[in-house]
């Protein structure tokens, strides 16, 4: 899947992804939680998707940053799902979604602190040991830091190193965070462990206040994010790239054009450079 371009399999576009000539991803991504244990119509859609495309999975509920214990029953089910669907890349968020034993169904920011680094790295290692594979953790968008004692880039670097895991580099999230917290996105990219990147996410977002962007996955990718993507891929090896779109699927040709634009950028930088260097 290296250098390929995929799209998240959402129910709203499942038929088009499986049957139409409008969208041609090289691979698809599932959120396992949306498909695990499900029968009937959606199970058949999942089976068709797995037969047609290579599959990556992007988890929502592992809650790697939670203070409480990992949910081992869930992780056991997850392992079965990943194996059954021949999942090539599994990623999760560097955040927490569970607190006081209650699930929250969104991504809360972990305090950027040394003890949190140790705690999260330890949990990632346990999950990796059980799943029998390295996982990729995603740099999440966040709207406020909470009780930080180090920078975001220090936090991410430390965890990737201590957990010996991979990084899912969400380029849109870097842009969003740089805007929201007033730092230079390219400097941040330079600070990332790019040799550990296994996967890239690209997405649209929404600016809701003068100084605040929310990571919505509901709009087209803006040019500055494409620019940041181009800047990033020149500095690293080829990996799969995913277009995240969670809603607003009315204009499928436009979404298809985004896939094509990503392919074109990849072709310009990765294929040319890596062909030349062979």
């Amino acid at each position, binding site marked *: 899947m290296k250098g390929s371009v995929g799209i998240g399999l959402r129910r709203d576009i499942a038929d088009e992804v499986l049957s139409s000539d409008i969208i041609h991803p090289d691979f698809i991504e599932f959120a396992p939680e949306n498909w695990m244990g499900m029968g009937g119509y959606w199970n058949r859609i999942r089976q068709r998707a797995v037969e047609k495309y290579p599959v990556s999975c992007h988890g929502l509920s592992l809650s790697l940053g939670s203070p409480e214990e990992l949910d081992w029953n869930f992780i056991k089910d997850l392992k079965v799902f990943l194996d059954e669907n021949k999942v090539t890349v599994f990623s999760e968020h560097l955040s927490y979604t569970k607190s*006081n034993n209650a699930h929250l169904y*969104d991504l809360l920011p972990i305090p950027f*602190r040394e003890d*949190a680094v140790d705690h999260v790295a330890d949990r990632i290692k346990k999950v990796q040991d059980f799943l029998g594979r390295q996982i990729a953790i995603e740099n999440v968008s966040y709207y*406020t830091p*909470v*009780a930080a004692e180090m920078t975001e880039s220090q936090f991410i670097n430390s965890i990737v190193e201590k957990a010996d895991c991979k990084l899912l580099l969400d380029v849109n999230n870097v842009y969003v965070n740089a805007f929201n917290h007033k730092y230079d996105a390219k400097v941040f990219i330079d600070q990332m462990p790019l040799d550990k990147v296994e996967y890239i996410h690209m997405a649209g977002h929404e600016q809701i206040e003068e100084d605040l962007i929310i990571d919505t996955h509901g709009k087209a990718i803006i040019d500055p994010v494409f620019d940041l993507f181009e800047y990033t891929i020149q500095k690293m090896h080829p990996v799969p790239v995913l277009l995240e779109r969670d809603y607003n699927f009315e204009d499928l040709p436009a979404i298809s054009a985004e896939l094509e634009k990503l392919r074109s950028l990849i072709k310009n930088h990765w294929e040319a450079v890596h062909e030349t260097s062979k």
Partner: protein
Amino acid sequence: MKLRSETAEIQELLGKYCRTGEEVALPGITEGRVHHYRRLVYNAVKNTMDQAFPITVASMEEEEWDKLVHEFFSKHPTTSTQIWKLPYEFYQYHLSAGTAGRLKKPYLNDLLYFEWAEIEIHTMPDKSIDPYTDKGDPLSDKLLLNPEYEIIRLEYPVHIQAVKGIELKKGSYFVLLYREPGTGHVKFLDLSILHAFILTRIFETGESVQSFKGEIAQLAQVESEKYLDNHLTDFVNNLIDRQMILGYRKV
């Protein structure tokens, strides 16, 4: 645990704020930003409930519905890792909390359960199907039911009428919900207690209808065997047409 208790407490405070919306003092945050987390978290839960319970939502004022969602999410520690299963926890919470009585909506538990049952049947894991044929006798041959079904018992007929005036219709209602094999669509049928008994008996024992026709006659208080045979034949054929009965078991 490698996490300092102070860090854990900060994380739990943010989590508590997202669940309840009640202000908390968090260190090291950017002013005016943290409320977006409460908004995003609550919207995810609210949207899930809105989609799961459209009839219930339409049956009450928006503010009243919002209070039910808020109460559920702030008081109940949600256990499901899969948000699409959360409506069942919502139903269970309000059943235990006695919300139907408090709101003087005695049908509320039935309505929530009926709407959840539709989701449950639609998404339930696929079940294996024994070999069957479409050739057979509706009474004397063993029937194979579509295994992806549920019969639920309700006190109020929320499946066949709007909630206005439904308080006066308290009784015993049976609803068959099943998943159509080809499309995966959920269908439901209002059942008499007699038909609920017949289907349950076939499913549990695998017997032919003929083998317990005497009990059916007693329950239905029908003396004419010909009438009963015609009725049962029509019942079986109707359910075959609807794909609730898949056919006749292969011997």
